[in-house]
């Protein structure tokens, strides 16, 4: 609750903790993005919607 230079406002997590939580978000975005890209390419191969 008190101001601690090591803690990130407003969650009360330390910097390292906050970075770790953030890394899960980044990883998840990457994995889901890659999956979506592959799925789109495969759909385009079987039922092309462009050209």
């Amino acid at each position, binding site marked *: *609750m008190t101001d601690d230079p090591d803690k990130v*406002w407003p969650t009360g997590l330390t910097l390292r*903790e906050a970075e770790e939580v953030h890394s899960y978000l980044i990883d998840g975005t990457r*994995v889901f993005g*890659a999956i979506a890209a592959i*799925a789109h390419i495969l759909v385009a*191969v*079987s039922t092309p919607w462009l050209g």
Partner: protein
Amino acid sequence: MLDYRAFALRTLSRVGPRYLPFADVATAEVPLGRLLRLSLFQVTVGMALVLLVGTLNRVMIVELAVPASLVAGMLALPLVFAPFRTLIGYKSDTHVSALGLRRVPYIWKGTMYQFGGFAIMPFALLVLSGYGEAVDAPRWIGLVSAALAFLLVGAGVHMVQTVGLALATDLVDEEDQPKVVGLMYVMLLFGMVGSALLFGTLLENYTPGRLIRVIQGAAVATVALNLFALWKQEARDRVRAQAMLTARAPAFGAALEQLMRGPGTIRLLVVIGLGTFGFGMADVLLEPYGGQALGFTVAQTTKLTALFAGGTLAGFGIASRVLGRGAPPLPLGRLGAAIGIPGFLAIVLSSGLGQPGLFLAGTFATGLGAGLFGHATLTATMRAAPAGQIGLALGSWGAVQATCAGIGMALAGIVRDGLVAMPALSGYGAAAPYNVVFMTEAAFLVLAIAVAVPLGRFAGHKDAAGHRDLAGRDNRKNPVEVA
């Protein structure tokens, strides 16, 4: 600004922890409801197994007209990953996290891979089978993407199951472990039976659109169930996080060697491998055997699977109860294998004597034996797991179990397909080749019992001395004591 800040902090501190996916404190007593929720990850594992081995097997061969050898190759891919379970378990044991988490990050990663595999799988299969414009596409696109989809699902299943079981072992005390093992197995069985029925009904009238919807539905269900299972299971722990920073983990090879040096560890793994292989082939072969050798109708043979599963459930129940009272698991495991042997003999004899009743009794006995054996050996693995190496110990259990069960099921499938295709293979009648397989299984169970006999000594010694008990309990309070 300052007011707003104070207000925000107050509000967050009041409602915040309730909406976080981590528990705030590690509770000493884990209520049954929470364990029930955790065991939901086994439902998704069962769902993935059924989809791979059962449903997609049929869909790829019958509806998509993919060559059977290619299908078999694709479905074997996830098996290749099974030995990596030891590595996954080790990684989760030695994971360094600022939040003090060890298991949850890996279960989440596994869930993402499982989801990803299912998300691209239907399209990969359609491209592989040359659906629509894909006829003109280069062949490798379909092959590579289908292989990727199966690999992702396989890797995800291995990760989720290994680390999930390790988390369950972390959470409960030794006397509650049989209860948890029972719960895990029942959920796996429930997931397999339930999804087999569901997928069967949904894909009865096959269309490509329906295939996409069913498989992607499975993907969404996987993420939803696993998230629900994980929620607030592992505690956020700053003390443990500090310890993780300074702990020096042994190398994987050294850790594995240390685990294998434990009394009876390798022997127990061999027993698990032999027994799992012996029981693993039965499931697939019972239905065609009932149909061909004893002239059961299709509706009757479907009930055989239910009878087998009922026996297995009974086995889990008995094992949970008996082991929960503090009985040593190994004699019970031996008993399970020993019940399986007359079960298989009864099945073999039933066709010669023309006794369907004997066959039903044998089916139930085999299921009962499989349930007792599976439960007892997993409980034994959990109990023997050294506190700092729970993930590694369950990883090696999973590596052996998944490999042997997979090979057993695959072999049984090959045998079945061969027999169904040419029933007049031998002059000894339709039952003879099946009987050879059933006798082989019984022989494997005899081997398992023979290997297991000296194990009782180690277990007895450990129970009598009781020092593992003490060490285990102390270490569990502070799990980062990597030597």
